[in-house]
C-alpha cells in the first residue's frame, strides 16, 4: 500500500488543488449574498437619486442604514447552527463597516464638490476592494471589481446628467449579476 515518492508528490498536488478549489468556492458562496444585496440597494438608491436629486442625501442615508443592517443579518444568519468562532461571524459585516467608515472619512477630507463625484467614488472603492479580494480569493472577484470600476468610470466620464440612471441600471445590475455568478461557481 506504500506509495512511491512520485505518486506521493502527485497525490499532494491533487490534494492542494482540491483545497484551493474548495476555499475559492467557499469565498464565492459567502461573498455572493452581499453583492446581490448591495446591487439591489444601488439600483434603488441611484434610481431614487436620479428621480429626486434634491433628496439624494436622505436617500443614501436610508440606503446605507438598510444595507449595513442587512449585511450584519446575512453575516450572522449564514453561520447559524455552525461552530464557527464568533470572530468569523463578524468578518464580512466588519469589512462592510470599515469600508463605510473609510469612505465617510475620505469624503470628509477630500470634500467633493458635486454629488456625482461621491456617486462615483463609492463604487470605485467597492470595486477596488473586490479586485484586491480576488488576488487571494479567486478570479471572479477580480472580474467583478473590474466590471464595476469600468461601468462607474464610463458613466462618470461619458454620461454626465444620466450618471445616476446609468449606475442604477448598470452599476447595480453588475453587482447583482456578479453575485449570481459567484453563487454558481
Amino acid at each position, binding site marked *: *500500500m*506504500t*506509495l*512511491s*515518492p512520485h505518486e*506521493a*508528490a502527485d*497525490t*499532494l498536488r*491533487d*490534494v*492542494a488543488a*482540491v*483545497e*484551493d*478549489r*474548495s*476555499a475559492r*468556492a*467557499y469565498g464565492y*458562496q459567502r461573498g455572493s449574498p452581499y453583492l446581490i444585496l448591495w446591487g439591489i440597494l444601488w439600483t434603488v438608491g441611484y434610481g431614487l437619486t436620479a428621480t429626486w436629486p434634491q433628496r439624494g442625501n436622505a436617500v443614501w442615508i436610508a440606503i446605507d442604514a438598510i444595507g449595513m443592517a442587512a449585511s450584519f443579518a446575512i453575516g450572522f444568519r449564514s453561520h447559524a*447552527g*455552525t*461552530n*464557527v*468562532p464568533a470572530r*468569523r461571524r463578524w468578518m464580512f459585516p466588519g469589512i462592510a463597516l470599515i469600508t463605510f467608515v473609510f469612505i465617510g472619512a475620505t469624503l470628509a477630507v477630500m470634500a467633493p464638490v458635486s454629488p456625482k463625484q461621491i456617486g462615483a467614488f463609492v463604487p470605485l472603492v467597492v470595486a477596488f476592494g473586490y479586485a484586491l479580494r480576488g488576488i487571494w480569493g479567486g478570479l471572479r472577484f477580480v472580474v467583478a471589481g473590474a466590471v464595476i470600476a469600468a461601468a462607474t468610470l464610463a458613466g462618470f466620464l461619458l454620461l454626465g446628467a444620466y450618471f445616476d440612471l446609468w449606475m442604477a441600471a448598470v452599476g447595480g445590475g453588475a453587482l447583482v449579476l456578479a453575485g449570481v455568478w459567484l453563487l454558481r461557481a
Partner: protein
Amino acid sequence: MEQPDAIIHQKLRLKIMAALKALPRGERLEFVRLRAIVNATEGNLGAHIGTLENAAYIKVDKDFNGKKPRTRLSLTDAGTRAYTDYVAYLRAIIDGDIPR
C-alpha cells in the same frame, strides 16, 4: 506513520477530506458543491461519505432549506487529525523518511 490510514488512502475519500479541510473551522460544505469540487457522481460520492462518516472523520447534517432537502458536511477533530497525519505521511515519503 509507516502505513497510511486505509480510510483516506482511497483517492476520492482523500479529496473529500481535502475539500472539507480547506474550510474555516466549524464551517460546513453542501453536498452539491462538494460534488462539483471533487468532480464525482452522486452515488459514488454518497458511498464514500458514508465510509468517512462511519469512521467519525466527517459529520453529516441533513435539513431543509425552505422546501429543498439539504445535506451539509464538516470535518470532525478526528478527521482533521487523520488528514494532517496523512499529508505528513505523503511528505515523509517524498523526503525519503519512509523506506519503500
